[in-house]
């Protein structure tokens, strides 16, 4: 079986290169037969990748520890769910999953276009196959990336890292990879349209849904990673600006900018260079994220790298991508000159521009401080530096989210602007009692941020109401238009939901970072001992033990939690002691609508301990981060949902084409 996997992988490399060759020639000479042959090679590339993946998957399912990779990432005691997760628990399997996803996307694009073969799509599939060939080559050539190696005789299965035994961590890597691959499609079409010198919007039309889907999965991946860090890693937070986290955020930022650039590219022909640049940057940053994670150049305690081939191949991909994109863009610069211009500073166009600029700067700053500062300046910065960049920028961008939909395209008159500001201002004021009740006046910057959040909520409501009024038509009640304000345009409905979700995320980030409150207490192991934080009292009840995952011994210290005299629950922070790899403390959380009580022991404890070093943290509004993240994904799903034909006609009828927002609707149709 190992040999079969290895052969399939080698063939995948051959077929991906063959399709690159056919598609490149077909594109160059505009020959449909060559393009079609290229597509056939893509099918073969896809099938061989599926075979390779199936071989590895069956090895995990059948507990075939003769595969070195399976022995390293699984053991006989794991459930089927976690045995499947072993597939992407290490580098080799992650690359194979990535390759499989590239092949899936390439074959879908090829299948959809087999009957209307044309050069633009052929070029995009070619770029996908180039990326696929690089990953296949990595797995064929680089020893540390080979998924199909025989285990040394007598190897004991390692099992899965216990920290990864959590559903969020099973889903986090595939979500990220789907996001990365989805977001490489706009790059592939961008390169193709540059090669052909086609300055029209077809490449955007063909890749926009892929970009939205990629963004959706990347959001999901980043969110799941944060949630896992919060509930499993137990370090007292969900985001530590670790290089791996930071570099997965960077492509999310540029992808967000890309989606906005696409909207205006399609509707108005604006941001054409931006769209190309952002598509390339997003892809480049996904490779940079992998480069950071896999080469270990940034994190390693030791400055030397053990795996030079991997570094060379990934660095080569980064250099070639950057050089090819900038070269092609310089060559075709004039063909992508915008038809239109940003006319006024007080317009939606300008704020779109500002949003894109700030998102890009933010992305570059995070990438620079994460990667370039340690490598080039031999220095390192901590979370406080990233926060100092992210916090003000986050609030400014939130303000842009708030104001942007209120302004008209092109230019907004002062009187009109003042009128639309009333509702957001009122909402900001109405929410002040809530912030005061939660005690948020203690930090002025956080308070300002939350005022902006309140304003932004009002702006979203205003946005919905305005669309409703327009949909209802003159003389009819607002309510009659409210339904249509949501069903009228998928893009616009998605914008309401995503923007509202983003406001919740930012409010949650402000609450849980700025107003985080932490106490430590050394609690004697004796029933009735107490520790307290901000109105909560924890009373020690006793210690129990059972068997945790991977034959670990799990010790629970149980506390009754009371608030204002009434018991609100029990918490049992625990320690997992693994026979092979030491002990890990695990946090427990009581969630309330406005704050979480997070409790973890500072040191591992067991039944022989005399006292427990307890760390208690209050995270205000942290649930809003999760809720908001879910809304981001819901919004993306809304915009991807295929339209029923009847609805589409209704939507067309409901929103006249000349309507200012109609331009945006045109983009989604």
């Amino acid at each position, binding site marked *: 079986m190992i040999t079969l996997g290895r052969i399939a992988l080698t063939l995948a490399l051959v077929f991906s290169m063959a399709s690159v060759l056919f598609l490149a020639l077909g594109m160059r000479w505009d020959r449909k037969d060559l393009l079609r042959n290229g597509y056939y090679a893509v099918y073969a590339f896809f099938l061989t990748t599926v075979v390779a993946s199936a071989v590895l998957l069956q090895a995990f399912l059948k507990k075939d520890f003769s595969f070195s990779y399976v022995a390293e990432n699984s053991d006989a005691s794991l459930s089927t769910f976690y045995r499947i997760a072993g597939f992407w628990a290490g580098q080799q399997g992650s690359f194979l999953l990535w390759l499989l996803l590239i092949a899936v996307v390439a074959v879908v694009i090829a299948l959809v276009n087999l009957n209307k073969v044309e050069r633009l799509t052929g070029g995009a599939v070619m770029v996908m196959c180039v990326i696929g060939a690089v990953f296949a080559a990595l797995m064929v050539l680089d020893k540390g990336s080979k998924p199909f190696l025989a285990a040394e005789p007598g190897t004991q299965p390692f099992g899965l890292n216990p920290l990864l035994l959590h559903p969020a961590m099973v889903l986090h890597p595939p979500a990220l990879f789907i996001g990365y691959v989805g977001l490489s499609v706009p790059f592939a079409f961008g390169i193709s349209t540059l090669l052909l010198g086609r300055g029209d919007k077809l490449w955007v039309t063909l890749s926009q849904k892929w970009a939205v889907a990629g963004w959706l999965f990347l959001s999901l991946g980043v969110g799941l990673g944060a949630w896992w860090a919060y509930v499993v890693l137990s*370090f007292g937070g969900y985001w530590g600006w670790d290089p791996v986290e930071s570099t997965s955020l960077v492509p999310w930022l540029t992808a967000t900018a890309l989606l906005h650039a696409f909207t205006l590219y399609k509707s108005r022909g604006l941001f054409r260079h931006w769209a190309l640049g952002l598509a390339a940057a997003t892809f480049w940053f996904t490779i940079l994220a992998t480069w950071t994670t896999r080469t270990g150049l940034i994190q390693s305690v030791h400055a030397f790298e053990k795996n030079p081939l991997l570094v060379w191949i990934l660095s080569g991909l980064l250099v070639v991508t950057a050089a090819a994109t900038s070269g092609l863009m310089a060559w075709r610069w004039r063909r992508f000159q915008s038809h239109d211009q940003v006319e006024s500073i007080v317009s939606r166009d300008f704020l779109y521009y500002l949003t894109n600029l700030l998102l890009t700067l933010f992305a570059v700053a995070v990438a620079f401080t994460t990667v370039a500062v340690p490598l080039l300046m031999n220095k390192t910065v901590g979370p406080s530096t990233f926060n100092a960049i992210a916090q003000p920028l986050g609030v400014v961008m939130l303000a842009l989210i708030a104001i942007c939909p209120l302004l008209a395209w092109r230019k907004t008159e002062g009187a009109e602007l003042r009128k639309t500001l009333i509702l957001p201002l009122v909402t900001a004021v109405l929410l002040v009692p809530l912030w005061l009740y939660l005690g948020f006046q203690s930090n002025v910057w956080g308070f300002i941020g939350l005022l902006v959040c309140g304003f932004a909520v009002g702006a979203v409501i205003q946005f919905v109401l305005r669309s409703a009024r327009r949909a209802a038509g003159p003389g009819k009640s607002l309510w009659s238009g409210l339904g249509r304000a949501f069903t009228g345009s998928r893009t616009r409905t998605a914008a309401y939901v995503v923007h509202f979700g983003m406001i919740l995320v930012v409010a949650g980030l402000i609450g849980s970072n700025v107003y985080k409150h932490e106490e430590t207490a050394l609690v004697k192991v004796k029933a009735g001992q107490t520790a307290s934080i901000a109105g909560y009292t924890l009373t020690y009840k006793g210690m129990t033990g059972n068997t945790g995952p991977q034959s670990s011994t799990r010790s629970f210290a149980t506390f009754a939690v009371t608030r204002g005299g009434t018991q609100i629950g029990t918490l049992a922070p625990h320690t997992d002691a693994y026979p092979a790899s030491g002990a890990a403390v695990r946090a427990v959380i009581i969630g309330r609508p406005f704050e979480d009580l997070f409790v*973890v022991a500072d040191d591992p404890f067991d039944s022989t301990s005399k006292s427990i070093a307890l760390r208690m943290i209050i995270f205000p509004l942290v649930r809003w981060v999760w809720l908001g993240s879910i809304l981001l994904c819901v919004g993306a799903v809304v915009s991807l949902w295929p339209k029923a034909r009847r609805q589409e006609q209704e939507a067309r009828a409901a929103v006249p084409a000349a309507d200012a927002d109609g331009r945006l609707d045109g983009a989604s149709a």
Partner: protein
Amino acid sequence: MNKKSRTRLLIATGVIVVVFVIGVVFLVQKQGAYYRQVSDLTTGQYDGKNVKVGGKVLDGTINRDASGVHFTIQDLTGKPETVKVTYSGQMPNTFNSGVDVVVIGKYASTGGVISADQLQTKCPSKYKGQASSAPTPSAAQ
């Protein structure tokens, strides 16, 4: 094509980019920690500076009191130098005697102590090569 608004747009962009770049460079200069070995610290030039240092936690040096945890780490390049560390934040799960840690914080040459505000551990043995630290989901990828 409106030349005036185009110029304005360029100026606005330029101002934003320049302010932003200066801000980031300033922050990195001010808050960045030098990545050094334990043996580099004794030269004295890092007194009062932020440093990031890797080292092995020496057996029997871990003490906990009201102000936090105190321990001593030894140079990783095989040199005999050691440095004391004081830390009061959340402990990483795998922290113990004998593990390799990375500490980030301000170094004071009087007393030879690093007041760490970050402490990360490298996994000792089982999960080969996968760095794990308190704030690090890196083991996952």
